[in-house]
């Protein structure tokens, strides 16, 4: 397949945009990249998803490498939930090989709508206040909260629920090539008592190995075209840097609103095309 310089530059650009939004909003970026690759570039959905998974692994590794050591990643909770997310990823990856392009597009549309709803609801949300000492238990932990200038302890509640949500998130990730963090983080914070910052960083650690549990299936099936995948990953690497830079300087409220709207549009496009 001849690949033109212009096409490659375009994919790098798409990757950079996805990576930037990802870093700004704590999304994997795949949720923007996958529809762009299939709608704009006309790649088969499975190839777009396969490329999406590679960018998720790259994003996860970069973000976690930067966060490691600051005490917000809960490694114990991470490894327990990863049993569920990788199982979900494996199942999703196997299922994706059997489903039609049309079904995958419709599924993507519905998931994108769900993510948009979560995003709209989060626009005004802040980390909840939790004062006093809490027994962290065997899965909980403590971290330094910059907002309150003190070390907060938390306890993980409803572990079976967290495992179930993690399995679903992994499944969606393996099926559609997105990270699935946006599905886990709200559940962990509202139902399981995990502080937002901890949930976000632990989730961004988990999505890497989750994607790695389905990416090999796409790879050996020939659904990860190397040139486009390389271009996307390189784009994402540049985009996340830009995203971190902007995130440190801007309020993300209006951005969440805007991107929620973009997601609704993307979802409708996917369903219409299917």
């Amino acid at each position, binding site marked *: 397949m001849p690949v033109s310089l212009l096409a490659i530059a375009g994919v790098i650009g798409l990757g950079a945009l996805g990576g930037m939004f990802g870093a700004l909003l704590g999304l994997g970026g795949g949720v923007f990249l996958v529809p762009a690759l299939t709608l704009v570039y006309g790649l088969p959905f499975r190839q777009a998803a396969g490329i999406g998974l590679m960018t998720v692994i*790259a994003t996860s590794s970069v973000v976690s490498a930067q966060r*490691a*050591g600051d005490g917000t990643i809960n490694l114990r909770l991470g490894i327990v939930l990863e049993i569920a997310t990788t199982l979900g990823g*494996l199942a999703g990856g196997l299922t994706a090989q059997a489903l039609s392009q049309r079904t995958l597009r419709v599924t993507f549309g519905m998931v994108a709508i769900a993510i948009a709803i979560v995003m709209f609801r989060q626009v005004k949300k802040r980390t909840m206040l939790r004062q006093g000492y809490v027994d962290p238990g*065997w899965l909980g932990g403590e971290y330094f909260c910059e907002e309150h200038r003190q070390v907060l302890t938390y306890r993980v509640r409803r572990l079976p629920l967290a495992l179930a949500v993690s399995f679903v998130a992994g499944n969606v990730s393996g099926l559609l090539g997105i990270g699935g963090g946006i599905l886990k983080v709200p559940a962990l914070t509202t139902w399981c008592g995990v502080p937002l910052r901890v949930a976000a960083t632990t989730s961004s650690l988990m999505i890497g190995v989750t994607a790695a549990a389905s990416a090999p299936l796409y790879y050996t099936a020939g659904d990860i075209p*190397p040139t486009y995948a*390389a271009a996307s990953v*390189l784009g994402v*690497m540049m985009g996340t840097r830009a995203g971190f830079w902007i995130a440190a300087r801007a309020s993300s409220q209006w951005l969440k609103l805007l991107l929620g709207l973009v997601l609704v549009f993307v979802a409708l496009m996917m369903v219409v095309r299917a």
Partner: protein
Amino acid sequence: MSSRVEVLLGRTLGIGVAVSTVLLAIGLVMTLTVGGPVAGGLLNAGLLVLMGTPMTRVLISCVEYIRERDWFFAISGIAVLLVLAVTVWQATR
């Protein structure tokens, strides 16, 4: 697990993604200019290193939990590695 281990895991991820970025960048430039099997090889090597990076991270944390005799989390880590092994087995079948 101590923050020393957390830093070690972070470094593993950082090195993995850096190596794969370099391989992918050189491979991509070569594909667009000279082409040939070496270019393709570099691209594929870059993708494989990238996929292997989070797997290596889990392997290292597993080893650390075993060393600390923290059996619940050691077994959790082994379970994750088993799932990854099934993936690779299914992929190469």
